[in-house]
């Protein structure tokens, strides 16, 4: 995408987010539907429809960061970035019949990458406006699951629904091992990017608050204890941003296994640092951030659940300490 075009797309997304940001966790279905229509109206679904795609992975990752900055009840990750990329990869190898439904992705009930058995317990993640969910097996098989009722989640703005195989079982195609690696790397990077945006924005908002809020006759941002807290949160956010943006660049320019390794590093950093950054911001806001009305818990809920989405930190750290040998090993996380 040309630089100017990217700037315009990002501005449009920013304007959408400003219009539809949620101030509370209580969002009615009518509101959600209106917001999703407005988001869909931006045409971002086209960004990765074709091959080569209109937008690079790095551009999509920066858009995911932008999206993550505001509390929103729409689906961008699942239905715009994650599931369409599966369909695009299937189309590349020609192993995919036209698929008319609007899917999001299926994850295990604890929100991890799906594994071997499609009849296991699954949910459709980030399912606002979705009509089905794509299940991606360890062997690359892609199935369409049907959606059921709402599933429990603590990330209150994010819609999660039950998902189960239909009859007959609907296999859409199969990703080759490199494509599966590429998709998992893609998913890790996009989810991480959204969390980076959330953490960065929340730290900025708490920093602004520290400039204004006075106690003992001076702004709390003049107290060294507060300054150092925010400085550490800033370092944490910068570490996350560097890791995710580099991993996104790898998606565009490196082999899938390299991209997956970089994506894991990014997710492992974000899982810890984005949460810590939000903790720091909440501490700066103090008592007000502990209330239902304040937006702090919306950010906390997003990053805290996000830190376990797709894969958990413990699995990532083990995989990074003991990388598998052999050129074509594709692991579950």
């Amino acid at each position: 995408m040309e630089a100017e075009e990217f700037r315009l797309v990002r501005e449009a997304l920013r304007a959408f987010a400003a219009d539809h940001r949620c101030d509370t966790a209580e969002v009615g279905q009518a509101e959600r539907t209106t917001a999703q229509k407005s988001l869909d109206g931006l045409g971002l679904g086209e960004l990765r429809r074709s091959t080569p795609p209109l937008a690079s992975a790095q551009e999509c990752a920066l858009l995911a960061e932008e999206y993550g900055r505001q509390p929103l009840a729409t689906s961008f990750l699942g239905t715009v970035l994650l599931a369409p990329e599966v369909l695009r990869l299937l189309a590349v190898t020609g192993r995919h019949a036209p698929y008319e439904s609007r899917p999001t992705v299926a994850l295990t009930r604890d929100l991890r990458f799906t594994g071997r058995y499609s009849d296991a317990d699954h949910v459709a993640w980030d399912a606002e406006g979705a009509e089905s969910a794509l299940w991606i097996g360890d062997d690359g098989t892609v199935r369409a699951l049907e959606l059921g009722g709402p599933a429990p989640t603590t990330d209150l703005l994010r819609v999660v629904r039950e998902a189960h195989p239909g009859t007959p079982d609907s296999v859409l195609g199969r990703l080759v091992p490199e494509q599966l690696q590429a998709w998992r790397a893609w998913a890790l990077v996009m989810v991480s990017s959204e969390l980076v945006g959330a953490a960065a924005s929340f730290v900025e908002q708490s920093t602004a608050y520290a400039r204004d809020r006075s106690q003992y006759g001076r702004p709390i941002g003049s107290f060294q204890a507060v300054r150092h807290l925010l400085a550490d949160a800033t370092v944490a956010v910068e570490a996350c941003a560097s890791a995710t943006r580099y991993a996104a660049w790898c998606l565009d320019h490196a082999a899938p296994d390299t991209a997956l390794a970089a994506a894991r590093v990014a997710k492992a950093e974000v899982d810890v640092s984005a949460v810590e950054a939000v903790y720091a911001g909440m501490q700066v806001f103090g008592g007000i951030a502990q209330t239902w009305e304040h937006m702090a818990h919306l950010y906390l809920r997003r990053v805290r659940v996000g830190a376990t989405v797709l894969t958990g930190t413990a699995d990532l750290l083990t995989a990074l300490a003991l990388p598998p040998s052999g050129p074509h090993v594709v692991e579950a996380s």
Partner: protein
Amino acid sequence: MTDHDVPLDFGDPADLDMLRRELRAWLTEHPLPRRRNGEPMAEFLHRWHRQLHSGGWVGLDVPERYGGRGLTALHQVAVSDELGACRAPGVPRIGYLAHALLEFCSEDQRARLLPRMLSGDDVWCQGFSEPGAGSDLAGMSTYARRSPDGGHYLINGQKLWTSYAQYSDYCLLLARTDRAAPAHSSITAFALPLNRAGVTVRPLRAANGDDEFCELFLDDVRVAVDERIGAEGDGWPLAMTTVNYERNALDTGHLSKYGLLLERLRRQLREHPDALPDGLVSAVGRCVVDYQVLVAHTRRRTAERLAGRPAGPESSVDKLLMTRAEQRLYETALAVLPEELHRDGGAVYGEYLYSRAASVYGGTSQIQRNIIAKRLLHLPSAS
């Protein structure tokens, strides 16, 4: 995210790749020197400095007329990277001094001092810190009194942490030239020859046994006006330029060093999976993350420079990330390689001790946080 956060090119430009290949070829023809039995580290490093210079591998970002190669900081980064990757000692630690001289010296001084600095004919050290002024440079009390006729200065005072002063020919010295004015306008820089009468150098033994750090005593040391660098009062901005380079993420020699140690830790996990408690696998994984994040962060900084964004106070972020990676890595190394914990004088234990200094030298971690709060976050000051 600001509007500055646009897609960046994290890859190496093509000519950098060529330079890397050129250096690799040169290194195969010029094997690394071996440290002789009992040879002081500084002398060994000096031999290495001269060897590198003979191949044109010192001062890549210094203009050719001063003995460099007239390339960019990124070329210097690539050299640092390659040397680390082949376990060579790093590039000579003169980059930040050379930049200070380039920016603040007169043309005549640049021509006289820089080529000899780059070639290793003159060895330089840095005389900034004092017993009463570490991170708080403004508290400096070394005083340079101008003679009544204005022809020279007499300097009195004491400096501390002047690395390898006992092996050096010159010191980039900071001293006050006005006791009444605020630090930002009253500190002046000098190129002080260390063989000058009145200079006493006393090495300190560091916690790891090395004799890197020195004290420098200055008793009525006479320096000429043309040994002053820049104008009176330029010492403060010179110091700020210097420390920004010192904290920069772009000096990547240490990155390769971390990478090699990490490989050793991973090998240990692979080969002796049952000898270590489970938690250590995660601990090593965490070090891998720290290290790879630092690599990504450095690439981001490089890409930002290439995209034309100048370096600034965000070098404090870089330094804190570097400190995090280094201190956790050596801490973990002693747990994964327990025999190293009991080998005083061993390389890993020595580097472990040195890693504790990472949060102190070049401005303490607390000072870096102050800088981030003030200059990046624009938080109000206490007054």
